[in-house]
Structure formats: structure tokens, C-alpha cells
């Protein structure tokens, strides 16, 4: 008896939806086993990481605030991935977006209000788009692989951040700690529910997936992205421009990451220190895949990943496992989701003796 993989004519819709869910469940199971083997209460750890954030009402705001940047960045990444353009450098675009927004805020001193905040966000979008445009330019003109260039530009962005907050942008009242001054109160995003940390950026993150959904499903550009990604030759015959697709997807995903950076600065963190790049840009890659590159999928997956972040912090206080454990869970999810892709495009069957297999096939 052996296992045989047969290519499906069409990707299985059932598998498309079922595998992400299975990936999450499998992650919990493996986590439970591994923690128990390590002598840590596995059930408690998995419960705290995956369920406490959903069950404890006071944790919802943390989940929402964490999910916002993940969802926004993932929307951009999935757009590119559909066209087989791989932006691995969203983290860098996120950083540059936040820095651009901080620069605008600083230029206005303590003046704030609608106009300044709008300008900050616009600067964030443009900053991220610019950082995303560099790998696009390199790819289109010099055939530089965007996976490498976008990733490497992340480290450049981190250096830019370090230089600015340790030098010209250092908080004059910060006693030399490398960080920017906190934003003026009028330069921060409005809080939607008084007494919580849920800022306007969260609402934007919950609306954007629907905007993306409509745009990618209904526009020619959305169709172009899908065609360029799935059948480049057909796209060329159809008159779709591959170069333009590369430009558009990288600039848009850069803009999204930059938007997330600006919102995170003005809504949640309020200043930039060396801990500002906390890996949202990389985690969003997991969100995009777990969400099956679909805008609404990204929204759901963003919430799932945010839950693991927040749950990681809960487990930190309850079972004393390091915060970074959440990262291991997130990586496991990505691993399972990528591995399970095979079930979407292939049918797995057990094949016995030739005669019997033929009979089974005939009977189908």
C-alpha cells in the first residue's frame, strides 16, 4: 500500500477553509504535548494562550489593538503574494512609515488636531510606499529578487530608526535614553471607547479588509493581480503588464505597512524607542497565509495571531513561560498552514494493489 497524490482540477474549497482551522488546532495539540513534556502545565499554557484572551473581557482591547497592525499589513502582503510578488520587508516599511509620521508630528511641535494627524498618517503611507518601491525598482530594472532586497531593507530601516532616535530625534527630556519625545496629546488618534486603549486605527483595520475585498474581487486591477500570479504567460497575452503589477503590489503593500506604522505610533505607542519594531511586519506574513490571502481571511487570522500575542503575555504571568513562546506557536501555525497547502491542490489517496486501486477508481 502506498500514498498517492493526485492533482485536483480545481483547488478544494473545503480544504481551503478547513486547513487553516486544522493548523490552529494542530498547533494547540503539539504545544500541549511539548509543554507537558517540558514539565509545564500544557493545558493551562494552551488555554491561556488561545482562550483566555477571548474569555477575559479586559483582554479584548489588547487583542483588538494588536490585531490592527497585523491585519493592515497582511492585506498588503497578500495582495502581492497573489501576484507571486513576495514582500518580506513589511517590517521595514512599517518602521519607515512610523518614522515619517513622527517626523511630521515633530515638525508641528505640540500642534495637533485633525489636520496634523491626517498629515502624519499620509506621511506614514507615503514613507512605507517609498520603502516598498525600492525593491520594486530593483526588481523591475535590475531583476533583483524582491524577497532579499525587501528583507535587507528592513535592517536598513532599523539602522535609520536607531540613528534618528539616538541622535537628532532624541527626546530632550529623556535623559539620553534613545527614544523620541512622546507625541503631544493632540497628535494622538482618538480613543473610540473611553477607558480603553481601542483607538481609531482599530476601526480602520476592521473596515479595510472589506474595502480590499470589494476592490480585488470587482476591479480589473484585482483580476490582473490574480492572472499575473497564477498564469504569467496568459497575463502577457492578455495585455496585462507584469512590471506594473510588481510596482503596484510592492508600493501598495509598503503603503499598508507604513499606514500600520503611523497608526501604531499615533494610536498605541505614542513614541518610538528601540523596541518599536516588534515584528508585526513578519508576523503579518503568517497572517496573510493563515488567512489564505483573502482580505476577510486576513481579518480573522489577524485576530487569531493577536490572541496568541496577548495569550503569550497571559501565560507569562500564569505559568511563567517566556513571552517569546507565542512566537513558537505562531511559527508552528505557519508551518502547518504551508504544509497543508498540499491538501488544497492535491487529493491524497491510499493506493493498494493495482487491481483493487483500479476498481476503487472505477467505482467513483
Amino acid at each position, binding site marked *: 500500500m502506498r500514498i498517492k497524490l493526485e492533482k485536483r482540477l480545481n483547488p478544494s474549497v473545503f480544504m481551503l477553509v478547513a486547513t487553516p482551522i486544522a493548523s490552529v488546532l494542530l498547533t494547540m495539540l503539539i504545544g500541549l504535548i511539548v509543554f507537558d513534556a517540558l514539565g509545564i502545565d500544557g493545558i493551562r499554557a494552551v488555554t491561556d494562550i488561545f482562550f483566555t484572551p477571548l*474569555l*477575559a*473581557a*479586559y*483582554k479584548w482591547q*489588547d487583542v483588538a489593538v494588536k490585531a490592527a497592525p497585523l491585519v493592515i499589513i497582511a492585506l498588503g502582503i497578500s495582495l502581492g503574494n497573489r501576484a507571486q510578488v513576495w514582500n518580506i520587508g513589511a517590517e521595514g516599511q512599517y518602521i519607515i512609515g512610523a518614522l515619517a509620521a513622527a517626523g511630521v508630528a515633530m515638525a508641528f511641535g505640540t500642534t495637533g488636531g485633525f489636520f496634523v494627524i491626517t498629515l502624519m498618517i499620509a506621511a506614514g503611507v507615503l514613507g512605507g510606499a517609498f520603502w516598498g518601491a525600492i525593491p520594486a525598482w530593483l526588481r523591475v530594472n535590475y531583476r533583483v529578487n524582491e524577497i532579499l532586497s525587501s528583507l535587507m531593507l528592513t535592517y536598513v530601516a532599523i539602522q535609520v530608526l*536607531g540613528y534618528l532616535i*539616538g541622535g537628532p530625534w532624541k527626546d530632550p527630556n529623556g*535623559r*539620553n*535614553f*534613545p527614544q523620541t519625545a*512622546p507625541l503631544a496629546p493632540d497628535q494622538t488618534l482618538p480613543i473610540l471607547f473611553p477607558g480603553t*486603549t481601542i483607538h481609531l486605527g482599530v476601526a480602520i483595520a476592521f473596515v479595510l479588509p472589506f474595502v480590499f475585498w470589494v476592490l480585488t474581487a470587482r476591479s480589473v486591477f484585482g483580476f490582473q493581480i490574480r492572472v499575473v500570479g497564477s498564469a504569467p504567460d496568459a497575463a502577457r497575452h492578455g495585455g496585462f503588464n507584469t512590471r506594473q503589477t510588481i510596482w503596484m503590489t510592492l508600493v501598495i503593500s509598503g503603503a499598508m505597512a507604513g499606514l500600520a506604522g503611523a497608526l501604531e505610533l499615533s494610536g*498605541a*505607542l505614542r*513614541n518610538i*524607542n*528601540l*523596541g*518599536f519594531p*516588534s515584528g508585526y511586519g513578519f508576523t503579518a506574513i503568517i497572517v496573510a497565509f493563515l488567512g489564505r490571502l483573502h482580505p476577510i481571511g486576513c481579518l480573522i487570522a489577524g485576530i487569531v495571531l493577536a490572541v496568541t500575542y*496577548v495569550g503569550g*503575555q*497571559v501565560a*507569562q*504571568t500564569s505559568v*511563567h513561560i*517566556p*513571552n*517569546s513562546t507565542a512566537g513558537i506557536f505562531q511559527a508552528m501555525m505557519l508551518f502547518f498552514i504551508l504544509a497543508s497547502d498540499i491538501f488544497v491542490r492535491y487529493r491524497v489517496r491510499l493506493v493498494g494493489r493495482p487491481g483493487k486501486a483500479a476498481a476503487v477508481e472505477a467505482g467513483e
Partner: protein
Amino acid sequence: MGKLSRRNFIGAAGAAATLPMLGGPAFAKEKMKVGYVFLGPIGDYGWTWAHNKGRKQVESELGDQVETIYVENVAEDASAIPVMRDLVHQGCKIIFTTSFGYMDQTIQVAKEFPDVKFEHCTGYKRAKNVATYNSKFHEGRAVLGTIAGKMSKSGTLGYLGSYKVPEVVLGVNAFALSAQKQNPAATVKLVMIDSWFDPPKEAAATETLINIGCDIVTTHTDSPGPLQILEQRGLYGFGQGADMSQFAPHAHLTAIEDIWGPYYVERVKAVLDGTWKSADTWDGFKEGTVKIAPYNKAVPADVRALADAVQAGYKNGTYNIFTGPIYDQAGKLRVKAGEVMADKDLAVIDWFVKGVESAA
């Protein structure tokens, strides 16, 4: 049968969670909870290890009245905020946040919970329910500088720093000034690694300092990593925050030990008594917050005598390394002969003394 809605599910879960508590002594007074937010792992054998030792002292002295909860590896960014809120939600009435980078987060969370007391270590922002506390580590650095100045053959000393914050600048200056008292030509090569705890980075920076001629290296970062490198190279160094001699039996000349226990016990007691008030505490040798670990046998008797004299001077208030004349890196006279820098000026210092050179 009741409908299982989200609301009554949470209620049921909550009720289930409280059930085990009923099993205990039914009328025992509930213990007050004390929270700790730690920067590194409690096994760093340095900064966090010392704070955890203080926490254990609270448990052992007040264990019948309080219970402590701690969280390790808390990043110095916004993610510290939910950790602090979590501790409040778990019932903590006083929370110690033990690193400089939790300053704004502590102030923010304290604003949300005016009934909970917060104590922030090494910061300078206070509120009605936020006190600050720190240790005069630089007094200990004066002892290390004395030993290093006397024992270094090259006269080139290495200093591994974290950030250019006053606490670190003070340590560097106290070390350099003390070393120059023993060897006027001594220079201090300084590297800042932008982190408090990063063993690989600490080790790499130590290698750099050794390669440019430093034969004694001291650190203001928290891992024993640098000491292990010094041990391999047959050079000398000092422990940070705690006695690290087990990691480098030959290289470890001595260490500055941070003794937080008595302060923690005193402050927790104050909450129990209802006498807690926001304050700024900055103690040193005199109060027992700074202690010098046993000397290595490699430290000769005359050096020990010099080092002991510095300690004794601090204990009886007759010694202060920040006594003029003090010149800055550019050679400008900053403190006139005979003048002593006041604590308030030390707390905001942002310049290095003559003989401190950047090695990065």
C-alpha cells in the same frame, strides 16, 4: 435549562475558577498580592536575579501576610503595559517595575489604577501612587575603579555600557575617576550596546574591548557572558548586580551586589500598614543597598586595603568620588577643586570625565 450565552459562559467559567479557593481555610484573611515586573530572566545571575532575591526576602519575612507574583522577560516597550494590567487584575496592591524602560508605562498604568501602588526602579517620573527607587551603584563603581586602576598592566580599561542614561554615565565616571586616582594615565574605553541584557552582543563587545588592549573589563549589562570571555583570555573583570564568581572563578575580581530585599520589605510593610507614600529613594553603601562581593584571591592585600578604604569612606560619609577637580572629555573643568557634586546634579549627569574614550 439556561441558554448558554457568552455572558453566562464566562460567569460559569469564573465560578468554576473560584471553586478551588473555597477548599482552603475558609475564613483566613486573604493575602495581599505583590507584583514584580522583571526585565530579564530570574536566572540571569545579575540584575533580575538580584531583584528576585529581594522578592524572595519579602516572601520569607512577610509570607504570612503577602504573596508575590513575578513576570520575567518583559520588554521595555508598550507590551509592558498589559503585563502590569494583568498583575493588577490578579489582585496586586503594589507592583515593582524593575527597569528604567518601564517608566512611562508605569505612569500610564498607575493612572488607570489609582488604588494600586507602583514602585519604579531607576526612573525619575513619580505620581501620587508611583514612587521611584534606585541604588547608588556608582559608589560600588568607585571600588571597582580603584581595584582596576591599581591592577591593570596596560592602564587601558574596558567598560561595557548599555545606554547613555545618567545611571550608566555615573558608573563610567566613578570608575574612571577612581582608576585615575591609582594610575593618573589610566583610560577607559567605552562601548554602548543599546541593551541591558544580550549575552551574544555583550560577549562580542567584550572581545572588541580586549582586542584594543583592555586587560580589565567591567560591565553595566546584566549577563555573565563578558566574564566568561575574560576567563578564557586570562584577564580580569567584575560581576554586575550579583556575585558571578561561579561563571569565572579566576577572572571575577569582585562584584557590585544589589541588595533590594530590605527596601522591598519596608515598602510592602508600608502598604500593609497603610502608611505608603510616594517618594524617591536613592541609597548606597551606607544603607546597605550596595554591597561588594568577596574579593578574588588574585586581588593583592594592598589593593584590598585601598578598596576597603573607599567602602568605609562611603559608609561613614567621608568619601565621595565626585569631588573636584573634575574635567570632562574635552578637558573643561566641570567641578572646581574641593567642590562635591550634589545628588541632584549626579541624577541628571550626561557628560563623561577626562580619560573616557569611545571604543565603538
